[in-house]
């Protein structure tokens, strides 16, 4: 049975790697938490200032908020997916303890992004939202990505891992790859109106590397050797 607080056994690490004790300190996790909250805090400040008559979020603050929260969801998704490759390449197994928190932040920003859309754009009118999801393919794709992320968030705590068992939990959490692809498609489709693909290309490249790394590792170690995701 896997317990995320234990140092897990991994594939052979580079010979020179040494355990960095500071990674194990509680302060490290708190730091990552605080840093992850910064974008949200900045947006909250923007909302407050806008409500007070300021223009820090630009001429169309609703659009700025929806866009920014979407950007941060994608970024945290990439950061979360980067934990395992960085952990194995640097041999710092302790990085694993941050993966859950970063994954939950991805879900958090995804929920805030959807909330901004449904509140600021659709005024929380459920009928309009459902109609919009059906009418606009890119919103359907985005909503699907969030829906697929929900069981991952719901089973992120220790009791769920124990109940599901290691193999089933890992199988379920492979859904994150589908979320990544759906999220990228959602962003691409949104940008296709102005054929403005520069940023989309960057995320596509990053995700290609992060997902490609897993494909390569799976091919190298072969199926059935218990390769961890």
């Amino acid at each position: 049975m896997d317990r995320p607080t234990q140092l897990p056994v991994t594939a052979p690490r580079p010979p020179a790697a040494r355990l960095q004790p500071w990674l194990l300190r509680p302060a490290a996790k708190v730091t990552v938490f605080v840093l992850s909250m910064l974008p949200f805090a900045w947006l909250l400040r923007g909302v407050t200032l806008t409500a007070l008559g300021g223009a820090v979020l630009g001429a169309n603050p609703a659009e700025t908020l929806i866009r920014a929260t979407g950007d941060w969801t994608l970024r945290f998704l990439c950061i979360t997916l980067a934990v395992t490759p960085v952990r194995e390449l640097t041999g710092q197994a302790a990085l694993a303890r941050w993966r859950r928190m970063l994954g939950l932040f991805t879900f958090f920003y995804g929920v805030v992004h959807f909330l901004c859309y449904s509140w600021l754009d659709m005024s929380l009118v459920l009928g309009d939202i459902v109609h919009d999801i059906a009418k606009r393919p890119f919103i359907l794709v985005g909503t699907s990505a969030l829906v697929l992320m929900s069981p991952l968030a719901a089973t992120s705590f220790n009791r769920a891992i124990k109940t599901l068992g290691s193999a089933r939990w890992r199988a379920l959490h492979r859904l994150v790859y589908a979320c990544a692809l759906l999220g990228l498609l959602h962003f691409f489709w949104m940008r296709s109106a102005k054929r403005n693909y520069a940023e989309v290309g960057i995320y596509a490249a990053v995700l290609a590397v992060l997902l490609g790394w897993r494909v390569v590792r799976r091919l190298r170690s072969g199926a059935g050797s218990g390769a961890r995701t």
Partner: protein
Amino acid sequence: MHHLRDRGYVHPCTSEITPRSVYEQRRHWLKTAAGLSAGALTGWTGPGAHAQTARPGKLAALPSVPGTVAGAATMEKSTAYADVTGYNNYYEFGTDKGDPAQNAHTLQTRPWTVSVEGEVRRPKIYDIDELLKLSPMEQRIYRMRCVEGWSMVIPWEGYSLAELIRRAEPTGNAKFVEFVSLADPKTMPFVGSRVLEWPYVEGLRLDEAMHPLTLLTFGLYGEVLPNQNGAPVRAVVPWKYGFKSAKSIVRIRFTDKQPATSWVKSASQEYGFFSNVNPEVDHPRWSQATERRIGEDGLFAKKRPTLMFNGYGLQVGAMYAGLDLKKFY
């Protein structure tokens, strides 16, 4: 009344003719009433409208008199100059809303000519300074509704395009007017990007172009147009989505064929030639029933309903009587 069966016209009889003396008194009464109300209105709206659209002091002044055509000035609050000049779609300078304000400083607005050509008896290449003096400059305060779902209220300076068209004397073959914008890769960094075909082309039916509300525009808030708003001369067609109002015009061509406009070429299933503001005809990817008024609608407020023909239905609706607006979007 005698109802004569003469092609449906109902002819009045001679006993209904207004006596001449009464008729002449009415004209006198109307003149007096008009004078009084104009005086009263000027006094009433003068300081208010003037204060609301006061010069920002950024560019050269462009004096004007308030326009008087029906629909010339909406009573709604004008959008702040900073937003009008800082939140723009002008893809020749970048596709983000802040790009034109940041990048359009490279646009050269002098020397500038506008070629009036095609199916006209008097084609001419106008210098911009000639155009500025062609007809008295009017201030028109128009609503502007972008197809993306946001809107503004903008005090423009210009005169009805009809003034220019009359002088060009379109022939009987002229059914449409095509507007071509500048597309100079040396001064416009994004000309050459794949978002649209260049130069930017727009067009109107001749009656739409001749409509008094169609404005050949030279100024904004009492000053000449900033580069990012389409300097030095642009069109403004307030009852259509904003992309129909071509910026930085270099050619006005009269033709018998419907012009192939840039957005129709780019996505004909989404953008039509008419593109009249219409809350009942959705864009394929989003509803057009509501809009967000920049600077006015609160962040958490429900979006406001979009008006048919952007609220200019009384003035322009007759041009589309009998036209299926869902088919001819």
